[in-house]
């Protein structure tokens, strides 16, 4: 798999540690995201998936190791260079993070107005094209408060691709969506990535939906990569953690019970 060849990679995460204060979140993580692919980073809640995205976007700095995006070491970039790099990235936030005081149209046009000197007529056309790509051209004049959860996610997706980024990051894109919206978002992630020639990182714990659309999977648990491979590799894996996660088993390496003292002894009050 191309994920192993450094020159083909858009994102290289090497030996990264990260901690919030004393609480270690990531431990010696190594990841490669190949150019042009859709890669899923999967794992249970609180395993450090979103932290990884924030490290790639330069919102956080690792306590050890390096994060390289498009040949640039993100933790070493000054704010000017970091902002220049971010112009080549798009990010879809878990709850959309749409600007609530702007219409759908203005949300999508926002970056074009801020970062380019394009005439308003061209911005209008480009914005409508982006909205058309996510099927919401007809909702251009609506306010975010008038959108359903799935629609808001699609508008956020249109906003994320407004400047045709080289890297699109998705933070839990399937969370809280009905089956139809879920399928739409899944299909859009795949088709937009291929149409734009971009690279996508999908952080999710939705196994079934993400395995339908991604090329490569990293499975993270307790701050470490515990499995990696193509979708076929993951399906064929006999690793107990991978099986528990993929088959959605309630008990396994990740225990159902939170650690506690002996049940009978606790009940009898001894």
């Amino acid at each position, binding site marked *: 798999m191309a994920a192993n060849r450094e020159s083909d990679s858009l994102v290289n995460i090497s030996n990264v540690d990260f901690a919030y204060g004393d609480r270690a979140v990531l431990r010696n993580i190594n990841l490669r995201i190949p150019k042009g692919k859709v890669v899923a980073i999967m794992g249970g809640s609180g395993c450090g998936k979103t932290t990884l995205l924030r490290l790639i976007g330069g*919102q956080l700095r690792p306590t050890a190791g390096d994060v390289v995006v498009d040949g640039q070491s993100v933790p070493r970039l000054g704010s000017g260079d970091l902002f220049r790099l971010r112009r080549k990235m798009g990010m879809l*936030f878990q709850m959309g*993070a749409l600007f609530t005081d702007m219409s759908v149209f203005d949300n999508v046009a*926002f970056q074009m107005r801020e*970062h380019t000197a394009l005439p308003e007529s061209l911005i209008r056309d480009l914005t409508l094209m982006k909205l058309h790509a996510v099927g919401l051209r007809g909702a251009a004049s609506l306010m975010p408060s008038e959108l359903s959860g799935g629609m808001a996610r699609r508008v956020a997706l249109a906003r994320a691709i407004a400047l045709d980024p080289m890297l699109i990051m998705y933070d839990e894109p399937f969370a809280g969506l009905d089956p139809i919206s879920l399928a739409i978002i899944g299909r859009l992630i795949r088709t937009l990535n291929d149409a734009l020639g971009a690279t996508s990182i999908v952080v999710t714990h939705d196994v079934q939906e993400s395995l339908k659309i991604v090329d490569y999977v990293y499975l993270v648990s307790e701050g470490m990569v515990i499995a990696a491979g193509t979708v076929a590799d993951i399906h064929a894996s006999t690793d107990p953690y991978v099986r528990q996660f993929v088959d959605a088993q309630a008990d396994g390496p990740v225990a159902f019970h939170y650690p506690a003292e002996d049940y009978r002894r606790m009940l009898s009050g001894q």
Partner: protein
Amino acid sequence: MIKRSFSTIAAILRHLGARVTRNLLNLGLAARFFVAIIASSAICLRRPSLVIKEVYFIGVLSLVIIIVPGLFVGLVLGLQMYDTLERFGSGDIVGMVVALALIRELGPVLSALLISSRAGSAVTAEIGLMKTTEQLTAMEMMAIQPISRVIAPRFWAGILSVPLLTSIFNVVGIFGGYIVAVLLLGVDMGTFWSQIEAAVDFRLDVVNGIIKSLFFGVAITFIAVFQGYHAAPTAEGVSLATTQTVVKSAFVVLGMDFVLTAFMFRGI
């Protein structure tokens, strides 16, 4: 026994030290934030529409909360002053007293308190909610500085709006005094206005009042944006930040008023 007393004293000192350190850190944070706003303010000159939009939100939408209290303050001031002055046979100078009280003191202070309650708290809640819903983070990820795009326009709009609203408060208040003194109590209209014209000095009273309101504008708008930007990203955090904006603004305005008055009107 002695050992216990020592440990109690040590605990008190530790607590006190922690409080002082925390407040000093917050002061440093506020100073850095203030410098960051000033450094990011060029956008307000490049794109004045951003400031105008906020002037509408902070200024125009606060007109009702300025005009109605302004009128009632003028009405009450007219009644109270006339009653007191009439005991000394000086009821005719009620216009002058109302005007000076409003222009020098009540106008700037009451307007600032009203604006911080209405617009300051709204600005804090808006910025706090933008933070809670990751809108500010989204902006940063789009390579746009929230301090430049969100904070600076609100800051300058507040500074512009407060003196304007204070002027409106003063005018409406004086009109309230006119209604009571001239229309209800029968003070001569010519005397009412001529007393004001003779007693109110443009530089000493009007300009100083405006300067006061400018200082108040900087203070209350800065407190509002600072509290919103540094609010904890939870419902409770936004609620606490909004309350802090109103409470801190009130203390700062009243304290600042004393200092500014001492400098402006000393020896008069």
